[in-house]
């Protein structure tokens, strides 16, 4: 039996345990600690790359303790590694490696538990991707969650991290318990915990009320992790206050893992039973597109750099959910490529903000105006990544978006592309405005918002004072990640390979056969036919157009005060500030209220369409 899937979680867990156990010895030897963490994360990346190559010929299934299923009944717990799940886990390991390299010089003093927490976080993420058991999925979800809450509050002597971590931990715990209730309900009606076996059992009958309730509860927990409106409020709070290398992981993969969970639960468990109805597409499409627009609007009005990037993550999470909601192989393939491209670009942006914080001691756009001029390389990397975020060809983000909207257009939803372009222009415009203002001193500094200034002023940085030069270990990971986001696009046979992976992800019968009877299904059959994963001239025009739109918007945002048409004292969007603050209140009670409201609405929509 292939041991690689198990190794991918065992290695980081053992390393984390060893670091914690040897704490008294290692405390004084910081470089040894850093080196161990980097090497472990890199080793996991290599293991997952090898596994990814192996999954090209069929999913790799590993049964813990060798307890193979007997007569189609799962006895043990399995890992089922497909191309998409392994690819996502690989991305997580890659980002952890980059974040650990960045941390080498970023923290002046560092606690041992930082490394241990990062490695358990990595183990949680890889386990979540690879597992084939629904209760195991919950356990990894919680392991990932608990490490993430602790990492958010890494600097407990400040006020922001405490509040951010509390909001994050309480909302996500409520989500986890809702998911667990759903798991208990589905276990009660099937007597199984293996995803494949549950899927096979519930597909035999008409979907009863219990199945729908279980589906609703499980995905609500995952949607909270995936920061979908109205479950998204915790994200900006947590991302704004976590240490920069941790933000890279939060925005880059953790949010996407929630949506991966939704896709996995739908395609491997509930899909056949619920019957792939257009009502399901409708419900998720509505949520996805709403999230896309809300995230983009919040992003554009933000002045706190980390919060700005956090809101852009919400917007992109909406686009990912839209791609999943289409239920087509090309849509899912587009999401896979988009997630990879977005993770690399967003990680690079966060690392650049980390460098700004390290050198200039602030993350407030108003105060940083023009002060980033000496940071030449950082400015170039940040600008490139910002262009990538606005979907300029040939970034992987462009390719992903083109596939999703292309697949939508084939199924009569051409308007998806309009919403995508609007969101890309807003998000790209906001990030390019930062690039132009901070690194090149273009235009006028934006007006000071008291509330945001107070938030941003606390962020004094993990280093004592500004440094004279940027260490290579901080800029190199950011540059490599941006180049990788371009490099992916030129991988040979990318389109057919990713789409074949998506097709296999969506074929529940093939997944069942692979897991429960060990059959190798090389050419699965999809619900929808595979579409041509190519790029048309129209796609390129749209990509270039949205990047150009973002540039124009960024220039308008920087120079609008000098335009003759506007009267003096006019602040665009000033009237929106107060109502918006009422939503994003920072009070955890409100966030949980929204979770309950969202759960009720989603439940109503599902009951109405399926029941």
């Amino acid at each position, binding site marked *: 039996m292939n041991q690689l899937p198990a190794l991918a979680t065992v290695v980081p867990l053992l390393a984390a345990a060893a670091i914690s156990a040897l704490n008294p010895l290692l405390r004084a030897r910081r470089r040894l600690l850093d080196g161990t963490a980097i090497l472990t994360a890199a080793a996991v990346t290599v293991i997952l790359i090898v596994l990814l190559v192996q999954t090209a010929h069929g999913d790799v299934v590993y049964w813990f303790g060798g307890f193979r299923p007997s007569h189609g009944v799962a006895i043990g717990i399995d890992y089922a590694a497909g191309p998409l799940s392994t690819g996502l886990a690989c991305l997580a390991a890659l980002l952890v490696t980059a974040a650990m390299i960045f941390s080498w010089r970023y923290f002046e003093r560092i606690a041992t538990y930082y490394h241990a927490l990062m490695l358990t976080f990595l183990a949680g993420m890889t386990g979540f991707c690879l597992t084939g058991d629904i*209760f195991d999925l919950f*356990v990894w979800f*919680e392991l990932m*969650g*608990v490490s993430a*809450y*602790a990492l958010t*509050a890494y600097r*407990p*002597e*400040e*006020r*922001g991290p*405490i*509040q*951010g*971590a*509390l*909001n994050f*931990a*309480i909302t996500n*715990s*409520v989500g*986890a*318990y809702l998911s*667990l*209730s759903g798991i*208990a*309900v589905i*276990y*009660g009606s099937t007597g199984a*915990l293996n995803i494949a076996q549950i899927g096979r059992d519930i597909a035999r009958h008409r979907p009863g009320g219990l199945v729908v309730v279980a589906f609703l509860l499980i995905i609500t927990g995952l949607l909270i992790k995936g920061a979908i409106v109205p479950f998204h409020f915790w994200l*900006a*709070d947590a991302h*704004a*206050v976590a240490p920069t290398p941790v933000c890279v992981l939060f925005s880059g993969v953790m949010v996407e893992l929630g949506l991966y969970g939704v896709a996995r639960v739908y395609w491997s468990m509930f899909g056949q039973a619920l019957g792939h109805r257009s009502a399901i597409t409708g419900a998720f499409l509505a949520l996805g597109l709403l999230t896309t627009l809300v995230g983009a609007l919040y992003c554009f009005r933000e002045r706190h750099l980390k919060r700005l990037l956090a809101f852009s993550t919400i917007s992109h999470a909406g686009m990912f959910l839209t791609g999943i909601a289409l239920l087509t192989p090309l849509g899912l393939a587009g999401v896979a490529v988009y997630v990879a491209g977005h993770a690399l670009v967003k990680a690079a942006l966060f690392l650049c903000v980390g460098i700004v914080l390290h050198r200039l001691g602030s993350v407030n756009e108003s105060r940083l105006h023009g002060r980033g001029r000496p940071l030449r390389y950082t400015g170039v990397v940040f600008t490139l990544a910002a262009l990538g975020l606005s979907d300029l060809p040939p970034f992987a983000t462009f390719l992903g978006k083109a596939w999703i909207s292309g697949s939508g257009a084939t199924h009569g939803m051409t308007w998806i592309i309009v919403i995508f372009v609007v969101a890309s222009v807003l998000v790209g415009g906001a990030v390019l405005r930062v690039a132009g203002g901070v690194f090149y001193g273009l235009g006028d500094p934006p007006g000071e918002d008291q*509330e*945001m200034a107070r*938030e941003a002023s*606390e962020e004094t940085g993990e280093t004592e004072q500004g440094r004279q030069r940027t260490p290579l270990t901080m800029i190199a990971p950011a540059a490599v990640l941006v180049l990788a986001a371009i490099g992916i696009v030129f991988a040979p046979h990318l389109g057919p390979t990713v789409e074949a992976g998506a097709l296999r992800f969506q074929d529940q019968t093939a997944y069942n056969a692979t897991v429960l009877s060990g059959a190798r299904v090389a050419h699965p059959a999809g619900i929808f036919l595979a579409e041509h994963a190519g790029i048309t001239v129209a796609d390129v025009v749209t990509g270039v157009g949205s990047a150009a739109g973002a540039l124009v918007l960024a220039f308008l945002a920087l120079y609008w005060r000098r335009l003759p048409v506007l009267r003096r004292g006019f602040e665009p969007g000033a009237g929106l*500030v107060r109502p*918006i*603050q009422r939503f*994003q*209140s*920072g*009070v*955890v*009670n409100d966030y*949980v*209220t929204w979770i*309950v409201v969202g759960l009720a609405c989603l439940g109503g929509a599902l009951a109405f369409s399926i029941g």
Partner: protein
Amino acid sequence: MQVFPFVVVAWILGVGLYGIVTSRHLVHLIVCLIIVQSSTYVLLLGVGYVTGAVAPYFFDVPVHTPAVDPVVQALALTDVVVEAAVTALLLALAVQAHKRFGTLDPNELVQLRG
């Protein structure tokens, strides 16, 4: 299968969520979160319960004696472990919040807004 345990589950879940939504004290709020989680214990045990069956302890009982489902009990135990970790972390954060903000009212934690 009896309906009564599941009514209790819904009640506990509802009460816990109501507590979280209306709470004005972080420690109270964390206790309400524990109550939400308690609903999952009752649900898990209720799902595996068999009327008239013995505990899943197969020693010194005749073969084919009906027993309640041991799997859900293992799941509930795992759930307890998870809860212990989360609660400990949350209470530690509440202590820190009291130190930094001087209050435990979630409405008065005002560092992050908008």
